[in-house]
């Protein structure tokens, strides 16, 4: 472990272990996400069956839409829809003063903790969801409603890379929310605005491919696509070959933009920090 990364990796490991302890929350979250997943799958089945002519021309077929839905449910907690509660709490209580006392870059320190918080919550839920939707559902004879395997081996590998980038991008977007919380001293307004933006623009509610054709370019280019839609498209082959490179490139681009903007904004907020009382 190099001396440079030691503080950040230690913070990441500690937060990961702490967050992983919340097993009841993981199970409850999984149960809810499974319920919603089943509901959404049934709605899509009915939706595609009600207009066979339109369904035939759909840019994304029923089977892929269902797989997309299960992936969206499995990785739901990667949605950057709330600021990190630990940061919000530190801002409210003034414990942020102690964060500034550490000989570490505050952005990196918060980023490592936020990423660990996301990863520790997504890991058990994703494993449970994959086991259920990709293994148990087909075993029950419901192949049509199941999470299908990736288009090919390369698509599977591309998905792993893209989902890793999605986690990094999600943490970078959450960092922007964290900075907003630090600036406004309250997380409720920030979270209220972030939630709909994230679930609509990432493709969580409806796969982005099902939006009108004229929106497609913009939908793919905006940052939230990298949180869910791009990895999903790589999984079922909607993006392949050069498309995969483009998708990964977009994700990297938005990670860089969010990190750069977040660092700049955090430095400004910290320069006019006030820690009152006591």
């Amino acid at each position, binding site marked *: 472990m190099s001396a440079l990364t030691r503080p950040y990796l230690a913070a990441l490991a*500690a937060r990961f272990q*702490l967050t992983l302890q919340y097993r009841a929350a993981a199970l409850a979250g999984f149960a809810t996400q499974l319920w919603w997943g089943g509901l959404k799958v049934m709605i899509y089945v009915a939706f595609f069956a009600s207009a066979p002519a339109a369904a035939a021309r759909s840019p994304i077929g029923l089977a892929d839409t269902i797989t997309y839905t299960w992936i969206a449910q499995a990785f739901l907690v990667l949605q950057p829809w709330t600021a990190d509660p630990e940061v919000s709490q530190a801002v409210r209580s003034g414990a942020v003063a*102690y964060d*500034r*006392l550490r000989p570490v870059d505050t952005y990196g*320190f918060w980023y490592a903790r936020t990423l660990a918080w996301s990863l520790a919550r997504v890991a058990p839920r994703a494993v449970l969801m994959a086991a259920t939707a990709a293994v148990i559902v087909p075993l029950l004879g419901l192949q049509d409603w199941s999470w299908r395997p990736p288009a090919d081996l390369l698509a599977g590998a591309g998905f792993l890379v893209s989902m890793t980038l999605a986690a990094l991008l999600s943490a970078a977007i959450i960092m922007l929310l964290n900075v907003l919380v630090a600036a406004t001293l309250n997380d409720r307004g920030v979270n209220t605005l972030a939630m709909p933006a994230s679930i609509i623009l990432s493709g969580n509610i409806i796969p982005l491919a099902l939006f009108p054709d004229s929106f497609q370019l913009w939908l793919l280019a905006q940052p939230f696509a990298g949180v869910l839609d791009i990895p999903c498209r790589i999984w079922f082959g909607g993006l392949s070959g050069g498309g995969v490179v483009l998708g990964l490139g977009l994700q990297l681009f938005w990670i860089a933009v969010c990190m750069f903007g977040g660092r700049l904004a955090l430095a400004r907020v910290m320069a006019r920090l006030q820690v009152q009382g006591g």
Partner: protein
Amino acid sequence: MPQILVQDLAKTFRVAEREPGPLGAVRGLLRRRWRTVEALKDVSFSLEQGELLGFIGPNGAGKSTTIKILSGILTPDAGRVEVDGRVPWNDRLRHVGRIGVVFGQRTQLWWDLPVIDGFDLLAAIYKVEPADYRRRRDELVSLLRLEALLHQPVRQLSLGQRMRAEIASALLHAPSILFLDEPTIGLDAPAKLAVRGFVRRLNREHGVTVLLTTHDMHDIEALAERVIVVGHGRVLADSPFEVLRAGVLAERRLFVDFAEEAPALAIPGVAVRARDGRSLELTFDPAILPAPALIAKITAEHAVEDIHIEQPPIEEVIARFYEQHGAAES
């Protein structure tokens, strides 16, 4: 060159204000009124390596603001600060690695982590060499009697236990300066004594420079050779405590129990503060009438059963000082 140099420090805060009641809240939405609070107007002092300085003043005087600027958390509006040649807010990363800070009202340990895991994490954050860390941790654990607490989550500790763990966690990286902001707040008597004993030892035996703020004047009496009093954002006094006392409230108190009903005494320079049956409490100025002379005079003229002498309690001295300077919080 002093270790800590503070010159003409000034810091203002902008505070949003609104008129009371629901109507005021609505008006506040349309037009925000800001009030400027001058936390520090003009603070200057310096501190040599190895000193132990008590930093006192009423609530809102600017003590904590000064500590937060010295530790690199806040940026002042004006003035100069150098700590070991570093400007804290410009050189934050290098600066904070070499100081230790304890805020008595906040916690720096992770609430859900066992104490020892919190220590490990801090050692990683401060990049302390593992061998140095283990030696230092074991030393602190035995000095602060933390052995039994190491594997408990921080949230299960009592305030006194937690404060000992907080102080240990501020010292794992062997800082040469320790800032203590109200380290004894809310602690019971044995816990206060433990904290004071440890801080004294740290300062005397290890030469750690300590800057201590407190409202508990017994902390000051037990620890500080030098006291700075701040009020309304300015330094009101900077001297050894005894000098401060002599300037504010030089009187002594003499408690006398007579064999019979307490007599009416008429001694120049001596006043009767309280009378209760056979007992008298007198105040006198030792510069006018030294204590031995006063005692000799009383025992020569009256049958006395018991006698003892006291200085006014330190709280009273400080309260009187705040009053004289109009420094009490408005």
